[in-house]
């Protein structure tokens, strides 16, 4: 079996757990007010996403920054307790391309925080803002990670050995299936759904793998009630497609590794 055949028409829902770690890159904790308050919406958005996933019977992968795991340990355990996968997503939304010698320590801090909160070590990693250094994949491989999900350069998962991720799998993302791509430029619900639908239908018809990326935030994410309704419509469309199968990123990576 090839990677392409084991992952054909698989669909993953991935949620980047962006809370105030986004704002705390530029302002202090005391200033998480007004326009800097969006990140504090995290538990409201997460609860809505969880309810929808439960209603539709879909298990997702939550990419969690170490800082959010430390800030919301009970919530992260609740997510894991509902059968979703917890993967790592930097520690405090760092630019991994600019960390230099401190990168290994940052990766380890995030890794340990998530392992401590969840009780098991994460096997997947996604770069905050998709920014990596040439050392990131070798470091992740040495730490025992099985997959990365930061690239946007293929229709199927692929092996990362030639990119320095020895023994690892890439679970490619797709900016056309992200909420933030459209909401950050203020597109309407209808427009976002139209973009998502057309992109997904095209990839499905080509037999490819689709990774949907969401955020629980009310600015560039799907946390708001109206957007959750839109997401529900999209999930039901996918579930109505023949051969479409929801799998977590970890499940897709595991099948690819054994292919």
């Amino acid at each position, binding site marked *: 079996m090839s990677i392409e055949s084991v992952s054909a028409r698989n669909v993953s829902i991935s949620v980047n757990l962006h809370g105030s770690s986004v704002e705390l890159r530029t302002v202090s904790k005391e200033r998480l007010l007004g326009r800097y308050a969006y990140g504090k919406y995290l538990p409201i958005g997460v609860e809505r996403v969880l309810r929808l996933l439960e209603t539709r019977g879909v298990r997702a992968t939550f990419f969690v920054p170490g800082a959010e795991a430390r800030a919301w340990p009970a919530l992260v355990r609740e997510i894991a307790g509902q059968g979703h996968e917890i993967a790592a997503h930097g520690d405090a939304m760092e630019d991994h391309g600019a960390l230099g010698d401190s990168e290994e320590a940052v990766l380890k801090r995030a890794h340990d925080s998530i392992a401590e909160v969840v009780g098991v070590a994460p096997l997947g990693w996604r770069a905050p*803002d998709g920014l990596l250094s040439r050392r990131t994949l070798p470091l992740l491989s040495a730490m025992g990670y099985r997959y990365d999900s930061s690239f946007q350069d293929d229709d199927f998962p692929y092996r990362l050995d030639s990119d320095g991720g020895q023994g690892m799998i890439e679970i490619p993302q797709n900016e*056309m299936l992200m909420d933030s791509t459209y909401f950050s430029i203020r597109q309407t619900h209808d427009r976002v759904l139209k973009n998502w639908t057309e*992109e997904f239908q095209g990839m499905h018809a080509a037999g490819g793998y689709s990774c949907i990326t969401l955020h629980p935030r009310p600015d560039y994410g799907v946390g708001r009630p109206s957007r959750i309704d839109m997401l529900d419509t999209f999930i039901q469309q996918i579930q109505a497609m023949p051969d479409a199968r929801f799998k977590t990123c970890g499940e897709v990576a595991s099948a690819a590794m054994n292919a």
Partner: protein
Amino acid sequence: MQSMWPGGVKCAVCITIDFDGPSNDTGLKRVVLGRFSHGRYSAKRGIPRFLDIFERQRIKTTFFVPGYDAEQHPDSVRAILAGGHEVAAHGYLHESFDLGDEEPFYLRKTHRILTDLIGRPPVGWRNPGGGKSALTVTTLRELGYIYDSSEKDADLPFFPIIDGEQLSDFINLPDNTSSLDDFPFYRVSFTPPSEVLTHWKQEFDALYREGGFFDLIVHPRMGFGSGAPSRAQVLEDLIVYIKSHPGVGFFTMEELARWCLDHPGQWPNPALS
């Protein structure tokens, strides 16, 4: 209406593909990993998908290839040539920035890389992301180029004016990166593919009515390009739509440029009229 075009067709169509692999991000000093990996899609998925479409639709096209991408993906360039398509130049590291005095060096470098792969010198050039200077056309002519497809100030081909004189051995085949390019819709406005198809059909309808020149630019990469299945389908649907009109000719840019040079009276510089 008197035809201006080869074979007496009513409307001349060039489908052009700017390769834009890892060169763009490398040229901007980014590591082509993560969010900057879009260019890696070109050789892996976008180019093969485009070549399949052009074979199915039986049209010949022009691929503008940055020298660095040709070095990284020589097999892709060979596949393009094997499909009967034209390979033309598009900068070395897709320099959309000003190269200053070094520009001739990089034009020559890419020229050597492409010449080795093609087996003969390329004759066409398109500026990468808008970068062009007073040195560009002079250097291209020294290297034997016969056309540039970068200018935005006309609907029809025209002879450039260099040092006050209108050339007759080098033609501009104008492009439009605001409306007949995938980049503005898939990067600036994130427009759904079905709406982009409608938009490009409207572009074609108007140019066809005028008996004009339709020069579409697409990219095989992820991100701002049309390489992904949903968007590649738009390209194929558009080609099918164009083909459904009588009197349409699909040409490589080299074919069109040679026709223009052979019929020099038709392409005055708009500044002289």
